[in-house]
């Protein structure tokens, strides 16, 4: 009898732990890339250390990205990006705080791909702007794969392009998010 009770308790505890574990998902090595097409040269950089937390219950989504973590193919470009464009000494971090507006349509316990709508505030270069985008969440046995692509305008974030390259560097930047999230235990 005692044994059976213990077993039931254990089952409940495991279940509780399991369901609790699926409340929140996170990563500390999220990938964020950006691309800018320009007549002079295409610019792209990749950050592999984005921190992301997703609360499956509320759909709250939070990103934190260190600007100095963007790696460029060319060192000179990386230096210009940090010193002249995003001024990463003054503004070391970009973050996004938002929610998945159609969170109720996502079943985080069932394998599958879902289209998500995300709305929130992006802070970059010390300026906060509303951002709205769509993306996908793939639910599989070991977590979530999240992906999204959206565009921002550098001028919205008061990132100025030096006048001598004004015609050669695009004001439009494409941001590609690709993060694998693990259940938070």
């Amino acid at each position: 009898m005692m044994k059976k009770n213990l077993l039931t308790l254990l089952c409940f505890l495991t279940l509780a732990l399991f369901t609790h574990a699926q409340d929140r998902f996170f990563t500390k090595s999220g990938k964020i890339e950006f691309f800018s097409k320009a007549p002079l040269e295409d610019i792209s950089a990749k950050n592999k250390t984005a921190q992301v937390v997703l609360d499956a219950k509320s759909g709250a989504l939070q990103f934190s990205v260190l600007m100095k973590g963007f790696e460029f193919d060319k060192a000179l470009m990386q230096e210009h990006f940090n010193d002249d464009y995003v001024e990463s000494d003054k503004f070391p971090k970009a973050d996004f705080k938002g929610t998945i507006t159609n969170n109720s349509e996502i079943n985080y316990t069932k394998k599958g791909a879902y289209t998500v709508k995300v709305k929130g505030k992006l802070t970059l270069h010390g300026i906060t702007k509303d951002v709205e985008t769509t993306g996908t969440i793939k639910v599989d046995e070991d977590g979530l794969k999240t992906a999204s692509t959206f565009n921002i305008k550098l001028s919205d974030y008061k990132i100025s392009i030096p006048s001598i390259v004004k015609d050669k560097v695009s004001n439009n930047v494409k941001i590609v998010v690709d993060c694998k999230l693990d259940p938070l235990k």
Partner: protein
Amino acid sequence: MKRSTIIFIVLILAAVGLWYGIKEFNRKNADLANVTAKVTIDAPSLTAAFEKDSSAANKTYLGKIIAVTGTVKSIEKGDGATIVLGNAGSMSSVRCSMDTTHLAEVASVKEGQAVKIKGSCTGYNPDEMGLGADVILNRCVLDKQ
């Protein structure tokens, strides 16, 4: 000076300038195995410095090549590898994102091992999301003393 000599010198200078310009334009990020660290610090002291005053610590460490000593808390492998340094019981860590051209060296690293890692400090994430506080290093290589 003869006119031809002057033209010759100008041409040489232009060629050197062009060569330097192209070389600088195409310069890659340095392999940190060949760079000397500005500071050497242990992992708990580094996280403590950021926890105490992150803007002062940013001034000291942000964008600098530093060497960090510490115990390997965990090793995360995916497309690349991240070695997490810090005390096992602590929520604070130094996360070292390893240089993908040096991944072979990471294979021999084990949890609990004492290591010295050189990397470029890209900043600090305070414990705002309940995930612990981290100092992040990029382009890391194992430093062989």
